[in-house]
């Protein structure tokens, strides 16, 4: 292996690692706030890439139909809940959020699809429509079970993953898609070639992470989410609605997923079922960080990306084995340095 190959692999690794870091962030966030292990996060990634690819072709993406369908189900659920509780005055606001707004988004994207808009606008449309799926998924699948055990929530996650996977095949077909690169620029630093694409991925990941940092540190909603993550009952007692916290969290997670999907599209061909493995690598990164610290989770994700790119060079058949076995020494180290196991939920 020459230095330039190593540099190339490192560049690949860091680029992928940045994407895994976003997913790791989404997983940690969803788990701490709602106790849901967010297995469908991978589908948000594939939906992101494939929606953008469909828009590129000037076709309305299948996610439009899904959004409209979920909005109708959520609207029906809100009406049913209002009728049962005889509590009508909150209904218009909820219908506006869960039914009207998503329908408007779906219609807007449907109408804009054939216009062959410039790439940045298509990216914005993609982010909007996939992000809108998040709160609706929470409302329809998880909210009725919000108080259930972690295990039941996990099984619901798996079921949602299955359903979204099958729908992905229906919407986008079995062929994979690649989206065009954001930029063709390359830079030369000595002997090393750095692609503008990699820099863009890194930069935008950093900006997104920075924006989230500000959101959690400076805004009332961000603080409400942090409070819910620390103490669910306490947050409820001071008036933070669990369903609001859940919807908001799923919105952020969906945004992170869609964003990752848009970033990964030009790097690798994405199939309807690629999301699961991609998000699992985010998971591995999050575990290396101990599932609690965001910076450590990001560092872990970078490590996963690097390990993946170097092992695909040396032993490509065993790439996945190497990446996923990495967890074992990390856990071993943690178990030998931690002595007390405390009360679990």
């Amino acid at each position, binding site marked *: 292996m020459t230095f330039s190959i190593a540099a190339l692999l490192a560049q690949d690794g860091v680029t992928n690692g940045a994407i895994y870091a976003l997913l790791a962030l989404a997983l940690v966030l969803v788990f701490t706030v709602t106790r849901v292990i967010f297995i469908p996060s991978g589908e948000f990634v594939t939906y992101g890439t494939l929606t953008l690819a469909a828009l590129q072709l000037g076709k309305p993406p299948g996610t439009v139909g899904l959004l409209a369908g979920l909005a109708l189900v959520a609207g029906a659920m809100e009406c049913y809940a209002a009728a049962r509780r005889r509590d009508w005055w909150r209904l218009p606001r909820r219908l506006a959020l869960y039914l009207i707004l998503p329908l408007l988004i779906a219609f807007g994207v449907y109408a804009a699809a054939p216009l062959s808009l410039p790439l940045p606008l298509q990216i914005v449309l993609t982010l909007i429509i996939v992000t809108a799926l998040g709160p609706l998924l929470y409302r329809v699948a998880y909210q009725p079970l919000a108080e259930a055990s972690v295990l*039941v929530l996990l099984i619901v996650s798996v079921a949602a993953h299955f359903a979204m996977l*099958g729908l992905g095949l229906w919407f986008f077909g079995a062929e994979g898609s690649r989206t065009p690169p954001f930029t063709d620029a390359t830079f030369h630093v000595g002997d090393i070639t750095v692609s503008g694409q990699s820099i863009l991925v890194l930069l935008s990941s950093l900006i997104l992470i920075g924006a989230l940092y500000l959101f959690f540190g400076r805004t009332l909603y961000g603080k409400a989410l942090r409070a819910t993550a620390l103490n669910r009952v306490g947050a409820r007692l001071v008036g933070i609605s669990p369903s609001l916290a859940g919807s908001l969290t799923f919105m952020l997670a969906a945004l992170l997923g869609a964003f990752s999907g848009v970033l990964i599209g030009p790097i690798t061909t994405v199939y309807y079922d690629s999301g699961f493995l991609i998000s699992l690598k985010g998971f591995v990164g999050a575990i290396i960080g101990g599932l609690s610290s965001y910076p450590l989770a990001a560092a872990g994700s970078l490590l996963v990306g690097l390990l993946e790119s170097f092992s695909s060079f040396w032993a490509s058949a065993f790439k996945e084995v190497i990446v996923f076995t990495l967890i074992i020494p990390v856990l071993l180290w943690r178990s030998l340095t931690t002595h007390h196991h405390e*009360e679990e*939920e």
Partner: protein
Amino acid sequence: MSARAVALLVLVAALLIAPVAAPPFWVTLLNYIGLYSIVSLGLVLLTGVAGQTSFGQAAFVGLGAYTTAYLSLNYPAISPWLNLFIGVALTSVVALFLGFITLRMKGHYLPLATIAWGISLFYTFGNLEILGGHTGLAGIPSLSFFGIELRNERHFYYLIWTIAMASLWATRNLLDSRPGRAVRALKGGLEMAEAFGVDAGRLKIVIFVYAALLACISGWLYAHLQRFVNPTPFGINQGIEYLFMAVVGGAGSVWGAVVGATLITLLKQLLQDYLPVLLGRDGNFEVVVFGILMILLLQRTRDGVWPWLARLFPQQRPRPIAKSTPLPRRSRGVAGRLLVVEGARKQFGGLVAVNNLSFALSRGEILGLIGPNGAGKSTMFNLISGALPLSAGTIEFEGRSTAGRQPFEIARLGICRTFQHVKLIPTMSVLDNVALGAYLRGSSGVARAALRLDRREEAMTLAEAAAQIERVGLREHLHSALGSLALGKQRIVEIARALAGDPCLLLLDEPAAGLRYLEKQELAALLRSLRNEGMTILLVEHDMDFVMGLTDRLVVMDFGQMLAQGLPGEIQKNPVVLEAYLGGV
């Protein structure tokens, strides 16, 4: 004959005649249901009861299947039955290792480690030439049983279902035993279980290995039934599906595993057969419908299908407690000091909760530890029981230092405790809750319990538990579900549980809180009679009347420090104590 016995007989009869009466297609389906049930049973124990989630069961199935496939093809001289044992040994080693690194820690490490392990093994199977890569290994011999070759699916059916029913029997036995009570306490009662001597980390590893072995046996059967293996059925998706079966069936009961395996297998088959006809087109719609149906099902019945089915059968009446020889008792010394606390200190960050506290307990006395709220009484209590480690100082029990010992090791020395906030298992009966207190007086392990070799010891344990329940005056609640008792009664159950452990030293954390006047008097009488039998008692309490009338000596704490110690009468007149309680006058 009870309705349950009739239902069981009907089930067994149906299972016996099914392969003769049913068309071959159904026999195949039933074979798969049997194989899946065996794996899900392990998950009921591990996930449903003990609360530890594993995604890696399919990988253990694969380990069993590939071990026998590889050995049968390359070393045909070895009997496939011997391969089963080799597979079991291999699986145990892997499960022990994975359990060791994940289960001793707090948090969700097991699900994550098993995801990683499942994926790695899947790709390893798929990429190793000697295991046939992604195409797999074909031509695995079938099994023979005492010279009879199991040639077709009907023959296999009986073997599979015999093993499935045997696993169900063993798992059910296990849950209804000494280790079973401890396993049931792992979810939500870890700290309590450890206070009664359960080595929780070790127990979790043992049941993880148990579940892995069931999966391995299922894989061994699968390889010889199919006579062909490839990596697909051992991937992470199948691992997730096993969890599905257990949860949808009802992960709290062994029957949930069978119900779940049946339901999911049939549903997937139906969807595959009829959905394309209904929709008039091919596609992957069955997985969509399957996912949506599962979400709907869990939203309607989140404990799975079995509890809902079980309501159709009449409640099983509890077995009467048989007379039995008593459990051996600990010998208690007669005089001298039992517990010596010397310079104890506990610091939480900048807060010193217990500061340089020294006192001693003599055998056969009742010592009261009192003080205003926030004085550090409960912290001191937790230092003695080992729930918190000391920052400095020493605690000696019968001349041995307790420093560095885990709570379950301290329990072994002969210290039993109650909890300020009641820690009982609400879904278990009062009897089972109290019997858990006698955990250290038995020795039956998982294997003995599963094979029902523990019945003599179990009868002795239950008789002891019943005797203690009677002693504290809760005889009429023997078989009640614990959750149905009032809080005051639950506190008394805690005392009965501590007594079942036959302690030298009884630690009581606010036992009189929530009791009515008469109940308090009964409790005081009980504690006095225990002292007369030679028990030593340390009491943390707020109720002054209760403490003054009962204790031999008092230690008063305030702001983590010793304020005074002496006889109750002296303490009542001590001006420093009066000021701490009533404020300066």
